[in-house]
């Protein structure tokens, strides 16, 4: 089973006033079969963690390691990371004008598998993945994320998750901006993926709402660029009741 290990990860971004450190020593291990939730207030660095693992060029890794089954992820190009088995469902999926969803999905699947999918089963798989996420098959003919509503973009991310079927999925605020019906549909998709048994899920969220539908094994509270506290699902319940105040106070004192 796959294991994603993050050790003492420090990440900064370039700003007008020089580099600014956002992640200050993140330690996290996500093994296949586990679902982890990272929760934290705005600006705590949750998305930075997600994009740094995926390899977005904006983020500079200043120290630390990220490995997938012992392989150095930080040494890989963005596409190599995806082919190694990492998947990032983005908070703000990007529009790609003129490229149809069908073409995009087939190109991505071919890249991930190293060979083109068999046409007959592939079309069936795509249509099933779309309908599972309550998306019309005609979405295949539309351009990638162009003119999609916020909810459609998020559902399209989960369609990709199911079709590309990575080892480890990182979901960056997939729940934000979704109404309750869409949230259920998206959660069912993530649960289908996780129920294969050997898949790792890192669910990044600001709210506890999605945790009613996706049950995490571990909850990490993220404050000021590092994990402030870890626990089981009960930690999420505490956050639901009391919010982030306790952690923010602790962070200010430090």
């Amino acid at each position: 089973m796959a294991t994603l290990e993050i050790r003492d990860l420090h990440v900064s971004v370039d700003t007008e006033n020089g580099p600014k450190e956002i992640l200050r020593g993140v330690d996290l291990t996500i093994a296949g079969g586990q679902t982890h939730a990272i929760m934290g207030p705005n600006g705590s660095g949750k998305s930075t963690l997600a994009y740094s693992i995926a390899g977005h060029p904006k983020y500079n890794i200043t120290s630390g390691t990220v490995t997938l089954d012992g392989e150095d992820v930080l040494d890989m190009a963005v596409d190599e990371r995806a082919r190694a088995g990492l998947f990032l469902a983005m908070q703000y999926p990007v529009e790609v004008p003129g490229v149809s969803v069908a073409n995009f999905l087939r190109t991505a699947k071919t890249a991930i598998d190293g060979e083109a999918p068999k046409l007959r089963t592939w079309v069936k798989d795509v249509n099933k993945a779309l309908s599972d996420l309550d998306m019309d098959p005609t979405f295949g003919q539309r351009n990638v994320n162009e003119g999609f509503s916020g909810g459609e973009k998020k559902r399209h991310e989960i369609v990709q998750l199911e079709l590309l079927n990575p080892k480890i999925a990182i979901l960056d605020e997939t729940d934000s901006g979704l109404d309750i019906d869409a949230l259920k549909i998206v959660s069912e998709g993530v649960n289908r993926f996780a129920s294969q048994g050997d898949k790792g899920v890192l669910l990044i969220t600001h709210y506890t709402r999605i945790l009613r539908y996706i049950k995490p094994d571990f909850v990490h509270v993220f404050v000021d660029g590092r994990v402030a506290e870890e626990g089981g699902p009960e930690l999420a319940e505490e956050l639901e009741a009391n919010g982030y105040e306790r952690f923010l106070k602790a962070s200010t004192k430090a």
Partner: protein
Amino acid sequence: MSAAETLVATGNRAHSHGPGSPVPLQARSERPRSYDVADFAVPNGREEEWRFTPVKQLKALFDDAAGTETPKIDASGPEGVVFETVAADSLKVGKPQDRSAAVAWNHAGEAFAVRIPVEAELTEPVHVNVASLGARGFSHLIVEAGRHSRAIVIIDHTGAGELGTNVEIVTGDGSELRVVSIQQGDHESIHLAQHDALVGRDAKLHHVVVTLGGKIVRVATNVRYAGPGGDAELLGVYFAEGGQHHENRLFVDHEATNCKSNVLYKGALAGDHARSVWIGDVLIRAAAEGTDTFELNRNLVLTDGARADSVPNLEIETGEIEGAGHASATGRFDDEQLFYLQARGIPEDAARRLVVSGFFNDIIGKIGVPEVTEHLHDVIEQKLARAAELSASAKAVVGQ
């Protein structure tokens, strides 16, 4: 900045008309036209119609002297098409609007005419190849589609020299004609062209300008309507690489009622001193009630050191129209698109190709001639491969 943001940003600001250049006071319809070279002074680059063009390199095509070669014209087509040589002034749908067009008109000799007979419906395209042999030459083509005919005419410009051309296009009443003009001369070649089209009553013209090669290529396309109900779809694709200047100038003159025009030009630029210019003038005269027009130019700048100028102009003399609009946007290659595709496992080169082919996708779909779109696809791939090599070697230099 994403393409969408660029569009909004451009739309909300006053249009740029280039550095230090005020909006011209002269209306488009007052621009002089003449068959006499002497009516046009040799351009110095400060004129409205030449200010974007590297005129110093065009002296040979401004010189009122006979060519030093006759470009080679080869034509083929399905049965029924008539090819013949006719006097230059036999049609006079076109009238030179600048010095180079007047020089070409006077020194091309006779015109080569392609005639599609009345009511002929051609199943295969007509091919005309105009090859410049490496010297200075001129050509004059006439494409005439008979009443209720349907045809595709592909004019392919190749070769190495300095070429001045005039193309006159007439679509008979109720006909549908698709003219594709491809400019793909050698790297040092220069080509200045003027196309004049007269769209018949209820006729449909698809005019496609595909510029893929040549050091300087400038194509001016003018469209008029012979009667009501005419429809002109004017498409253009260009891809300028380092040191190439690709220029397109359009003028759609709406004088008849209930006519349509739809202009869509898209270009990519890659490499140092890659340059594109697009000027889109549309005039809706007082009599042209019921006009429906839209023009759109988009440029995708793939590397540093490239520049795209885009100037849409719309003059409206009547409010009794269906619609009129224009849009122009020039954007840089969007790295977020690249990241998104790569994050799905697609290697960088393939991701880049996907984004660029996506950019051209809608216009390629409209060209409607498979042999042209396949060729275009191949050439774009080659150009992207060259651009990738350039950026890879630039990175290597930086890395040293």
